[in-house]
């Protein structure tokens, strides 16, 4: 280090820190100073603000200042014998650990502190991990999964009890997820080991900061808890790139790559751009299209998403840091992470689906606290322009999304119990008390606790259903695991991230490009070409769970699809959107985006209506594939999925029928072979709140929703063993799909609480039952308008081209097959004519 800030003997710590800030050309903000003070006084807390405003230094200097205060005599510092573990830094992505380490190291180096700073993640070397097990560094950067793994090592507990502070980075990213709950449980454990532990979180601004803070510090914090707002006066400039001719614009969900020239122009006008797309497949397409538009950009634009090989990603991140890349097309993989100060523009392709997310992404540009964030929005279909208009309204009104929390997921708890049972064992009464200090399990009942204990000890609550099963051994109230096989197995499967079976994609020569889902790769025939990692490759062969490819020329036959949920439109944005439509129905088009949609609104109005906030629009039309009933509640996709299943179920109760359904953020389509009778009065009954819960549960059983959710539950609770992609041979005799587990449990242990949990998760998270309920109340107070438009309207079109997914039927299979047979024959006759 060339530039060491020397501290003369006896200099006050704050002076040293001021000097450090001088040396990097900054001045400490007020919120940074208050965070340091709060840390010194033993408080815990949450620091929130937009990205790039010095949050990292705000929390990181706390422990440094405290240590400087305790060790004023520089002559006594011993760089060869660094202090033992003091600070744990938890980052949500292991890919971020390297960058985080670099930015935390800067002040340590400048102040010449004798601290040791290291990372420990799934990517760390085995030798480093083994060394750390003997003695942890002064400050350790880790992930929630690696932290849980460390808790399985009994000998680390002594060092953890010396821990002074834990800092959780990007807490908003973990909050409301099972990884967040896993973190809460680990924090409870650390607090148990040291009741005076300080816990600090860094978060983007959210709608429920209080809850975010409580989840972090637990229900019984030993010390003061603060919420500190970071530098908030960041300026933001949002604009939409509006297509010149809106009529020719596709209404569907088609990826609007026809906007490529305008996007290229935008990129040209600045130094460095992040282009966010909503899916990995879209990034591949946009990257290719941009290169096609500007072949001279080869080498100066890049691609970044979660399925690319680490080395590729690291190269891109380095290019962003150094400012050598003109543009990077990325997914949410670059939502997080350290500041890329060079980025001066963010382009968002497709709807961000939430106001907070839009704000967060915009914050990736103009990273200096004083700079302005710039975001350009590129709609992929016309209606998305309306979403941006709505998002701007929501941001202006300060209606940012809350992160709803999870209630006591038993799968995560079961995994935690095994973790603790390996890491020295536990007394059940004491651990229950500890677990209940977390926000997630505050209301855990004794019965639920006993069930989870039974589950990890003998497989389930019923005594005779699980002979020979033994995982956790029990002696009185003490539970422990001694079997080596169980220990190793658990360590390999810790975590709550569920991914599809993935395969490495490699060149024949050996370079790894990344991973793609087995289900996609296994369907490819040799010679088939696909876009991957920004190049066109062709399949050569699949061997030993690796897909070998080579460079190819021509046009792709296909594009990999990675699973992964599409984000639903947030509740806040849905409301803002309904308001925008209401304005449009009153012929008030406010803002560039809404004005651009005038022709589309005119068509909608001519063929049907534009619904006002107190109206529910239903459109019925016959198409080639059957009778379509469109409903437009504008409540977001998740609520619509629940409503669609419920309505289909309610109709099929009174008449024999089979429905195929599709949903998007605006509405629902129910497709049936024959016409569904619909007038405002019957339709009102579909939304009745009478017998609501029973009907929702019944409709859920008709579809495969609970079954799908069980996949995650089964994995976390340890039913499905998940090795790393290609890393080890899978135990063939232990393979069973979660669907199969689901069926076996339903049949032979129907009271298993994990089944119950999957259903609850579908209700709470997937269908957002509470949102559904309020949506139905709103609809009940609305006027229902049924239209039979002459053609598919602009609002309905995107739904029609969406893939039909769920089905509800009250017909027998024999009837359905007979009809399908008839359909096939008439189709064949049609061709024969």
């Amino acid at each position, binding site marked *: 280090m060339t530039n060491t800030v020397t501290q003369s003997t006896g200099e006050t710590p704050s002076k040293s820190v001021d000097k450090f800030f001088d040396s990097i050309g900054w001045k400490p903000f007020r919120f940074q100073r208050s965070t340091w003070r709060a840390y010194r006084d033993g408080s815990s807390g949450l620091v929130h603000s937009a990205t790039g405003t010095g949050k990292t230094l705000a929390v990181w200097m706390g422990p440094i200042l405290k240590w400087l205060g305790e060790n004023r005599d520089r002559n006594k510092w011993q760089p060869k014998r660094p202090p033992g573990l003091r600070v744990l830094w938890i980052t949500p992505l292991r890919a971020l650990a390297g960058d985080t380490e670099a930015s935390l190291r800067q002040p340590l180096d400048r102040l010449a502190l004798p601290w040791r700073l290291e990372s420990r993640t799934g990517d760390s070397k085995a030798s480093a991990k083994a060394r750390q097990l003997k003695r942890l560094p002064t400050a350790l950067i880790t992930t929630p999964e690696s932290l849980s793994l460390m808790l399985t090592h009994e000998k680390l507990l002594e060092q953890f009890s010396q821990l002074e502070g834990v800092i959780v980075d990007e807490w908003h990213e973990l909050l409301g997820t099972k990884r967040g709950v896993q973190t809460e449980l680990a924090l409870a454990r650390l607090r148990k080991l040291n009741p005076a532990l300080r816990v600090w979180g860094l978060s983007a601004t959210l709608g429920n900061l209080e809850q975010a803070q409580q989840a972090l510090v637990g229900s019984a914090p030993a010390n003061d808890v603060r919420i500190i707002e970071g530098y908030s006066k960041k300026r933001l400039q949002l604009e939409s790139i509006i297509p010149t001719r809106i009529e020719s614009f596709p209404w569907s969900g088609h990826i609007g790559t026809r906007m490529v020239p305008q996007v290229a122009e935008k990129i040209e006008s600045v130094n460095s751009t992040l282009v966010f797309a909503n899916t990995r497949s879209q990034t591949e397409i946009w990257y290719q299209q941009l290169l096609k538009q500007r072949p001279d950009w080869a080498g100066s634009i890049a691609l970044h998403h979660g399925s690319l090989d680490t080395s590729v990603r690291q190269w891109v991140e380095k290019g962003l840091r150094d400012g050598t890349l003109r543009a990077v097309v990325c997914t949410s993989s670059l939502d997080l992470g350290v500041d890329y100060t060079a980025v001066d523009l963010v382009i968002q392709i497709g709807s961000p689906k939430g106001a907070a997310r839009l704000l967060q992404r915009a914050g990736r540009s103009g990273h200096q606290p004083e700079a302005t964030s710039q975001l350009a929005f590129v709609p992929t279909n016309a209606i998305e322009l309306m979403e941006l208009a709505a998002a701007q309204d929501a941001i202006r009104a300060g209606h940012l999304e809350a992160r709803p929390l999870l209630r006591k997921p038993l799968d995560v708890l079961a995994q935690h119990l095994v973790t603790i049972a390996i890491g020295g064992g536990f007394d059940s009464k004491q651990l229950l008390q500890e677990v209940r200090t977390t926000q997630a399990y505050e209301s855990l009942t004794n019965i639920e606790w006993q069930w989870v204990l039974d*589950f990890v000890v*003998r*497989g*389930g609550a*019923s005594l*005779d*259903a*699980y*002979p*020979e*099963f*033994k*995982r956790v051994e029990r002696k009185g109230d003490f539970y422990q695991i001694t*079997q080596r*096989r*169980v220990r190793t*197995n658990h360590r390999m499967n810790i975590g709550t991230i569920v991914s599809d079976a993935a395969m490495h994609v490699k060149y024949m020569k050996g370079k790894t490009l990344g991973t793609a889902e087995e289900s996609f790769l296994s369907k490819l025939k040799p010679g088939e070409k696909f876009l991957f990692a920004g190049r066109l490759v062709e399949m050569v062969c699949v061997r030993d769970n690796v897909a070998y490819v080579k460079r190819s020329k021509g046009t792709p036959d296909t594009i990999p699809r990675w699973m992964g949920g599409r984000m639903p439109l947030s509740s806040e944005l849905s409301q803002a959107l309904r308001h925008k439509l209401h304005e449009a129905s009153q012929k008030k088009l406010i803002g560039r985006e809404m004005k651009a949609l005038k022709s589309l609104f005119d068509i909608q109005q001519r063929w049907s209506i534009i619904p006002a906030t107190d109206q529910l629009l239903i459109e019925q039309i016959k198409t*080639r*594939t*059957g009778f379509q009933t469109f409903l437009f509640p504008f409540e977001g996709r998740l609520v619509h999925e629940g409503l669609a299943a419920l309505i289909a179920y309610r109709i099929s109760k009174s008449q024999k029928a*089979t429905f*195929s359904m599709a949903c998007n953020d605006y509405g629902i389509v129910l*497709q*049936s*072979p024959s016409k569904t009778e619909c007038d405002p009065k019957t339709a009102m009954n579909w939304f009745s709140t009478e017998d609501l819960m029973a009907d929702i549960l019944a409709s859920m059983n008709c579809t*495969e929703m609970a079954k799908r959710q069980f996949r995650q539950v089964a994995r976390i609770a*340890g*039913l499905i*063993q998940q090795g790393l992609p290609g890393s080890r041979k899978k*135990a063939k*005799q*232990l393979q*069973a*799909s979660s*669907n*199969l*587990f689901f069926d*076996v*449990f339903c*049949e*032979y*242990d129907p009271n*298993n609480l994990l089944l119950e949990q999957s259903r609850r998760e579908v209700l709470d998270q997937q269908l957002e039952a509470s949102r559904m309920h309020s949506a139905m109340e709103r609809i009940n107070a609305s006027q229902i308008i049924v239209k039979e438009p002459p053609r598919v309207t602009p609002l309905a079109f995107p739904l029609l081209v969406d893939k*039909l997914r769920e*089905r509800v039927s009250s017909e*027998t*299979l*024999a009837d*359905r*097959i007979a*009809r*399908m*047979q008839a*359909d*096939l024959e008439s*189709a064949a006759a049609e061709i024969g004519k």
Partner: protein
Amino acid sequence: MSCAVKISLLDYELELLPEKGVYWNQHDTLFVADTHLGKEATFRYHSIPVPDGSTAGTLRTITQMVQRTRVRSLVILGDMFHAKSSLSDKTHEQLQAFRQLHPELRIKLVLGNHDRPLGTLPASWEIDVIPAGEFADGLAIGHEPENIPTSAALMLCGHLHPAVRLTSAVDQTSRLPCFWWHKKRLILPAIGGFTGCTTIRPTYDDRVWVVAEGTVLAYPNRGSRKSNQA
């Protein structure tokens, strides 16, 4: 019971049962494939909690078919047991009880890939392990669909756990286990209560019968001449 389907393949008169077995009246024999008995015990042995019951369920289903058809012999087309650890005490008891329930029944087993590492089965179960190959009247049996004897006109086999999803422009069913007649083979669905399945893509010349809601239904063949096996 009318939910079974009588078919005639190359002059062989067979009955496809909704319990996923094939009944050959002429030779008084019932065929089933892929029972995977004791699979839940294997999972539990490896600390994965799977409830008991699927083995008992599978044996009950076989009993139903045996009692209804009053056959004298039962042929298991491989993968009778899931793994070595499947032969738990409980599995032993269940097999013993099954034997006692059908003292006269001749049980024959063609070894499947899962059975081969097991070693000798207890003599008291009276199971004849027979080689794959011709069974009677030019009808062959085996586990894997490969290695069909050249002399055989038709082979009954398992191993694949076939299933199909029926799709038309307006409707689609879930995956349904099926009997699949494909290139001189009749591949049986897996009968085991704790077994998964593989989606097949029938070709134009194949015939498929799905099992659902307690019936066997002929599946409208949609395969084109071009498409190949999955």
